[in-house]
């Protein structure tokens, strides 16, 4: 596989696998018992149209050409695979960071929104809606809407709008209308409800750009394919840098799980590669203030798919908590529920404090301020019993500018050394 992003020719496909793997969605939209399309009839035609057309559109030559060109010239792909020397020394192993934070708009989210806006155009849609937690998906959606001259409405929990104010400002500057979701915990779950309601009310002209591998089929598969550019590049870059395309570990954070799905995608059938997803434990798994769905969830139905879900005994969805707005979600993509059920991937969780510590550590060791989401993945390096011969790839899904306000509140000082150990 070669990722060249040629212009004027057909870009090599990063969107399809040569054969359907064991861990891919089946023809009915399920990963094992998880997935499906649990939607009210008002959305049936839209979702059916998408399901019938998405693969043909994504595999068409003109789509591949435009997608490849935009990834290269607009997003700035391939994103570097950076050998983190000082971090590696600290953990006595080889750690590579997949620098999705260097993408245009500062996160992996743009891979998916570029793909979906091209798809929406080909479906003849005029209006785009989206939901966002940390704002990265909202910014990425507002960006591609500006690029394509399409109307954009982004739903965002009122609480998230406060804690991610810079991204709200960016979306508005890009021309998006940002609508606060006022129900429930006023975070990502509620923004998603509002976006789905908007879609129910505007089924004909509107495409809903879902930002993660969640929602009704075909969204989880479509988003995973758009994000699979991450693992396709990792393979090629590792081959060039180490002589082998396979790492021993791939680590990524999981809220809905799109950067993890993209990081795992081309390694799913390589069982020697240990796939590790890291959820947000919030204030602790037993604290009642957590977003660790795989650790605590039971199978249920949320936002159009059957997956693991944090819920009460009565089936009411529990309000999640994470210091990171992007991980503050009570469900998880059905592919992750399945990878967990089959044991193909290992899911760990990191607390708010562990994530903060990991963020400060990376900043001081490598001069990279990570997004709080990505810091959850970094936080588990200490728990992995790594050896010098291991090759660990951590997906650095986004950059930490948007989280500066939170970081500054917790920044260790001489008077208040909040972190657990000093940085060398």
């Amino acid at each position: 596989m070669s990722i060249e992003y040629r212009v004027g020719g057909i870009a090599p496909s990063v969107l399809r696998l040569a054969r359907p793997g064991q861990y891919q969605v089946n023809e009915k939209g399920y990963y094992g018992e998880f997935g499906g399309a649990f939607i009210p009839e008002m959305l049936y035609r839209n979702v059916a149209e998408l399901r019938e057309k998405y693969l043909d559109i994504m595999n068409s030559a003109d789509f591949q050409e435009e997608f490849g060109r935009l990834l290269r010239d607009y997003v700035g792909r391939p994103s570097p695979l950076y050998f983190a020397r000082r971090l590696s020394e600290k953990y006595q192993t080889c750690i590579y960071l997949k620098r999705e934070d260097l993408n245009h708009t500062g996160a992996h989210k743009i891979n998916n929104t570029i793909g979906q806006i091209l798809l929406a155009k080909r479906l003849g849609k005029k209006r785009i809606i989206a939901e966002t937690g940390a704002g990265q998906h909202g910014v990425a959606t507002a960006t591609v809407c500006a690029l394509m001259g399409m109307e954009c409405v982004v739903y965002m929990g009122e609480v998230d709008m406060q804690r991610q104010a810079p991204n709200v400002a960016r979306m508005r500057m890009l021309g998006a209308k940002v609508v606060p979701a006022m129900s429930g915990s006023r975070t990502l779950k509620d923004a998603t409800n509002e976006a789905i309601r908007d879609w129910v009310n505007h089924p004909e002209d509107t495409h809903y750009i879902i930002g993660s591998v969640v929602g009704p089929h075909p969204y989880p598969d479509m988003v995973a394919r758009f994000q699979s550019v991450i693992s396709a590049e990792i393979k090629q870059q590792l081959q060039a840098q180490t002589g082998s395309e396979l790492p021993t570990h791939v680590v990524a954070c999981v809220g809905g799980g799109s950067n993890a799905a993209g990081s795992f995608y081309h390694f799913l059938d390589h069982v020697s590669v240990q796939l590790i997803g890291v959820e947000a434990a919030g204030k602790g798994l037993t604290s009642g203030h957590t977003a660790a769905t795989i650790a605590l969830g039971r199978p249920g139905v949320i936002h159009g798919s059957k997956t693991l879900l944090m819920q009460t005994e009565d089936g009411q969805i529990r309000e999640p908590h994470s210091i990171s707005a992007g991980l503050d979600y009570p469900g998880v993509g059905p592919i992750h529920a399945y990878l967990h059920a089959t044991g193909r991937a290992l899911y760990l969780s990191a607390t708010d404090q562990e994530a903060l510590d990991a963020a400060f550590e990376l900043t001081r060791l490598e001069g990279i301020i990570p997004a709080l989401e990505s810091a959850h993945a970094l936080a588990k390096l200490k728990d992995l019993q790594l050896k010098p011969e291991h090759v660990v790839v951590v997906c650095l899904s986004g950059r930490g500018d948007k989280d500066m306000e939170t970081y500054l509140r917790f920044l260790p000082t001489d008077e208040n050394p909040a972190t657990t150990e000093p940085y060398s």
Partner: protein
Amino acid sequence: MNRIDSLFAQKKEKILTIYFTAGFPKLQDTRRILLALQQAGADMVEIGIPFSDPLADGPVIQQSSKQALDNGMSLRLLFEQLHDIRKEVHLPLILFGYLNVVLQFGLERFFEKCAETGIDGLILPDLPLDEFKQDMEPLCKSTGIHFSFLITPETSDARIRQLDEASSGFLYVVSSSSTTGKKKDLTSLQPYFQRIEAMQLKNPFLVGFGIHDHESFLQACRHSRGAVIGSAYIRTLQQAADIEQATKDFVQQILSGNRVHAAP
């Protein structure tokens, strides 16, 4: 005979179905509202099972669900409240809810409880047709409980026939693609209702979403056997000083167009 079938056999037009959310406005209001609706002249009732994340509902019903959950409502408690409801209420009763709540309760246990309670019909708007056929249709058949699918103006004729085939009791015709509680001009929808009527479906159909007063009720009934009213009644309950009187006034206003004001 299922009470829904009896109703449609006996009453040929202007069947008035009212939706309310269980546990709203007060936790213990369920029985009181059912009796008030029966007394006031409603023909059938949909009892909403509150859910934290109701995708097909507009803000009014969503808010009522939230309040009901805050009050402590649950499906288990609803079955307790309805335990001997058939001693007093003879109207056909339909449970309207979202799949997750039913799944967590346990499908077989849910159907057992419905049968014990005397529930006549179910509506679960987020249950896909294939999953219904696989998991629920056998339970519906064995318990004699009807299941109604929704159709919208966007639903193709071929799919309408599939949904009609899978439904029993009646088919729920959503007036337009939207969430609940949006007031609509139903005159422009007459061709859609006519189209459904002309398809000569297996099931009779009721029109729902957007019906809020006498005029819209009559519009909805012109080509259908009746209509379902939800948000407008929930709004009435929100403001009601006296549930019985407010319900009587509401139903009378829908049926006759005459506004009746409760004595001060």
